[in-house]
């Protein structure tokens, strides 16, 4: 699914080295936590996967596509195979729950009948079918993040990439979100999630990749957070 070989990232404007010869492979159906302090390179790692950040050197393949050599015009097609989730939900405030999710299908020109079916089905997955008419401002933080997850998975991506998805949520709500991720993962979707949440990582005991100063310092199959929370 993800194949990273000797990937480095140096930011042109500051000259800062965010990642330094990182190599890692993530297989289909894995559930991976990316942990590390702020500024360690976690965010760069995550954003490279959907080519918001382009590697300076090395080989990066995601979902069978060469991210480094890829033509700019192919980036949308890379992203159609990925679902991206952020800490701040990024919903459109003037669209309803239903419209927010449907938007992700409309803009890749999916047929209307398929849109209706898929949106209803993913709203079931995240448990928000009955709130489809609500606007984001009428929802709690956890509910908004569930809408964002629905939007990320509505196009049936092979990989879900989540950048601190529980960062703004209380522990109980965070577990609701993790439940959904576990269910998505059980259905075969690869999940890569950057997090600071010690409790979640230590409880779930999934693969943990720790990044410090642009290097992978730890990669354990059933790892723990390993830092003081």
């Amino acid at each position, binding site marked *: 699914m993800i194949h990273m070989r000797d990937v480095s990232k140096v930011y042109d404007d500051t000259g800062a080295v965010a990642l330094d010869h990182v190599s890692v492979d993530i297989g289909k159906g894995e559930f991976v936590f990316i942990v590390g302090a702020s500024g360690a390179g976690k965010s760069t790692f995550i954003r490279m996967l*959907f080519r918001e950040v382009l590697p300076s050197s090395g080989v990066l393949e995601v979902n069978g596509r060469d991210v480094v050599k890829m033509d*700019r*015009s192919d980036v*949308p*097609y*890379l*992203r*159609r195979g*990925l679902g*991206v989730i952020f800490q701040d939900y*990024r919903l*459109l405030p003037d669209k309803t729950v239903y419209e927010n999710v449907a*938007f*992700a299908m*409309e*803009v*890749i*020109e999916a*047929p*209307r009948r398929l849109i209706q079916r898929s949106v209803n089905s993913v709203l079931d997955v995240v448990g928000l079918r009955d709130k489809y008419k609500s606007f984001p401002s009428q929802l709690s933080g956890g509910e908004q993040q569930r809408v964002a997850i629905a*939007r990320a998975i509505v*196009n049936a991506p092979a990989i879900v990439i989540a950048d601190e998805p529980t960062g703004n949520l209380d522990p109980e709500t965070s577990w609701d979100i993790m439940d959904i991720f576990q269910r998505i993962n059980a259905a075969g979707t690869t999940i890569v999630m950057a997090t600071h949440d010690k409790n979640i990582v230590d409880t779930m005991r999934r693969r943990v990749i720790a990044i410090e100063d642009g290097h992978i310092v730890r990669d354990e199959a059933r790892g723990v957070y390993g830092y003081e929370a």
Partner: protein
Amino acid sequence: MKLSTSEYFIREVFLSLRRNNWMSFASIGTVAVSLFVLGVFLILVLNMNRLASSLESQVQISVYLREDIEDSTRRRVEGNIQEMQGIESVKYVSKDEAMMRLKERLGDQKYLLDALGDKNPLPESIEVTVKLPEMVQTAAEAIGKMEGVEEAKYGQDVVEHLFDITRLMRIFGLVLMVLLAGATLFIISNTIRLTVFARRKEIAIMKYVGATDWFIRWPFLLEGMVLGFIGGIVAALALRSFYAAMAAKIYSTLAFFPLLPQYPFMNYVAVAIIVSGMIIGTIGSTISLKRFLQV
């Protein structure tokens, strides 16, 4: 393009026009004013050209003969003119014919000529038409020196004057056009920039879920095009009234003026104006997208 996609684009465009209603209004107004001024110049220049060319094709030399000229001299003058290069036609006008023409031209006021009684003060003349307007001056000068010729007059100076005016109007119109086009581009690209700004969250999400660059750009290009189109229609309608009013005014005061007939001329002008509006609108939004939409 799929039907549902076109619907999506159209919905987005009108949503955005409503959302930025003041900027949209200002854009349409600027486009309309610019295109109207452009259209006025277009109409004037085309009509001046027409006037100039109709005067030009009429360019003829009136050769007035001496009072005491003999018939044989007159025929020799005619023959000499005929042999000159670049002469289109030579026509003799007798004293009687000249008087008849004058009466015709005076129309209702021909009674003025009654005072002359039987006397005819008009000279005999020869009307000479040359093939090319540039030849008029030299031809007239040569003819003027011939024996038995009193004077050779031509309308070239009028035509030259007209050409000067037309040229000046063209230059002035062009400069004004460039300035107005610049202002129009500026305001349209600003309107589109506001739209891009208002929709930056949507654009970011569109990119994350894999919308293509062109899918993201289309609504903005369409919006610019629609702004230009509406501005063009407003300008075309205003020009139509302008031309009708101008035609009425000119026909009542300068009946001889060879004004281009309103149809189909104004239809062509309308099409040109509306198409220009759409082109300006599209260029305006392209500028904005290049600068503010890094897709």
